[in-house]
């Protein structure tokens, strides 16, 4: 019974923790402009992140080594440094976007300008990283993030034309008035939002933080294979809400409040309150994860002690990096750079950085010296190869498309 409860907790935490500001922005903007025609990208992205998160978690569990440690070992110092700089920069951008997202969620609730909350949020994020135990942190914010289920409830209450929604999803077509380059650019953004690099760093480091052993491998798989797809459904609920409300009115969401419109209209003030709680938990949780991931990636590349499972005094440079990253992220938001814009860039660049991150994971997951008998199956390898090729194409196409579409405008 206790085992069942802990598995359920893990799955629920995975669902609630799946969505972050990138998913909120990407799905809402895509729904408003392209309806459900890009829903298939969310499916592709969810399958991809399930595949590589399970692999990264398995590698960390069996070998005791987290992703970036192995990236350097397999790519060599130079290539891994390029990878580190790109991944760190993107994770840092994402961190800034999440901090901005938390502040925006609070602004929606209080009608006080979000900039005033940024320093408070930064300090709160750092305090949690400094003091709160890892699994407590994950569980609290994961479970609170489940409040986002209200988006699905709102959708249900609105009695939408399910056939129309499904039809738009299953027969993808570029809507009238939109160009193909923009469509593909948003596809890349959606993919990047679902498959951000920091998720695998965090997931694999988290496996070591929580001391997973081989007995936990099944739990790992359940969390990933059940939790992530259900989390992906929440993303699709956001996309559907935007399709129903924003697209017909031609509203292009540039503000977080617009993502809340469908829920507010369907469920009133109570629904809005629950949604804001969900936004807050999702973005705060993601701020914690990206802050820690900044620390994980730098520490694991250079080899110094990392983790919340040791005293801060025993991992000083790790905590220093995390602290500086959070402070710098807050400063970036305080320059009044629009957090939504920062989010948009971070998810697109995420998509471009994925191949170099995933290749070492795929390779090490096949190494019997590390994995023993837990190496990849043929199916996993085949799917992994397909994704690597796909991500390679995406990586090459990203910058040209960004220039061509003027970043999706």
């Amino acid at each position, binding site marked *: 019974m206790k085992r069942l409860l802990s598995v359920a907790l893990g799955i629920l935490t995975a669902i609630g923790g799946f969505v972050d500001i990138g998913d909120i922005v990407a799905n809402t903007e895509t729904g408003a402009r392209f309806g459900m025609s890009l829903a298939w990208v969310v499916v592709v992205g969810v399958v991809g992140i399930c595949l590589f998160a399970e692999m990264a978690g398995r590698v960390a569990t069996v070998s005791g080594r987290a992703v970036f440690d192995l990236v350097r070992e397999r*790519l060599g110092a130079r290539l891994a440094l390029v990878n580190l700089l790109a991944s760190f920069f993107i994770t840092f951008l994402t961190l800034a976007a999440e901090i901005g997202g938390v502040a925006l969620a609070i602004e929606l609730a209080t009608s006080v300008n979000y900039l005033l909350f940024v320093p408070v949020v930064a300090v709160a994020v750092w305090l949690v990283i400094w003091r709160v135990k890892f699994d407590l942190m994950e569980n609290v914010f994961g479970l609170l993030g489940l409040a986002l289920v209200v988006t699905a409830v709102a959708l249900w209450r609105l009695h939408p034309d399910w056939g129309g929604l499904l039809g738009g999803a299953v027969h993808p077509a570029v809507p009238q008035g939109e160009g193909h380059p923009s469509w593909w650019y948003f596809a890349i953004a959606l993919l990047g939002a679902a498959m951000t690099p920091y998720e695998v760093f965090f997931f694999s480091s988290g496996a070591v933080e929580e001391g997973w052993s081989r007995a936990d491998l099944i739990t790992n798989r359940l969390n990933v294979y059940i939790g992530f797809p259900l989390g992906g459904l929440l993303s699709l609920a956001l996309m559907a809400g935007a399709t129903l409300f924003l697209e017909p009115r031609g509203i292009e969401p540039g503000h977080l409040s617009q993502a809340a419109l469908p829920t507010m209209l369907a469920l009133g003030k109570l629904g809005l309150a629950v949604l804001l709680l969900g936004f807050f938990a999702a973005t705060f949780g993601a701020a914690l994860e990206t802050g820690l991931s900044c620390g994980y990636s730098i520490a694991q590349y250079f080899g110094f002690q990392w983790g919340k499972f040791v005293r801060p005094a025993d991992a000083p440079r790790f905590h220093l990096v995390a602290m500086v990253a959070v402070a710098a992220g807050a400063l970036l938001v305080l320059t009044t750079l629009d957090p939504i814009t920062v989010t948009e860039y971070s998810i697109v660049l995420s998509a471009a950085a994925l191949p170099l991150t995933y290749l070492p994971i795929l390779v090490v997951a*096949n190494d*019997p010296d590390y994995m023993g008998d837990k190496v*990849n199956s043929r199916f996993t*390898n*085949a799917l992994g*190869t397909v994704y690597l090729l796909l991500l390679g194409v995406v990586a090459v196409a990203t910058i040209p498309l960004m220039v061509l579409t003027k970043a999706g405008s």
Partner: protein
Amino acid sequence: MRLTDLLGAEVVDQAGRSAGKVHDVRLVQDGPLVGGFGAALRVDGLIVGRRAVGARLGYERRTMGGPLLVKLAAGWLRHDGRYVAWDRVRAIEPDRIHISGSADDLPRPAAPQ
């Protein structure tokens, strides 16, 4: 001297022809005893190849499984390895190592463990 002084250096024979670049250095543990470690690691020779190798993915070991495409790519990259025993090294300059004899009569490296 550092290991990285050897890695990536161009290997040149007596006639001035290049045998490629140093990809790796083979060590054998049969030197004098060193503290708690045991016998010291002694340089046995250089593994040299023409293609630029950026990654050490691990496919040199026969036990390594893996996605087929990656295995093939890695195999192609390592296909041209040659071995220079240390006693053929004549001089070491920055980025260049001079060896005795001809670049053409270098054996293949014996399969690693």
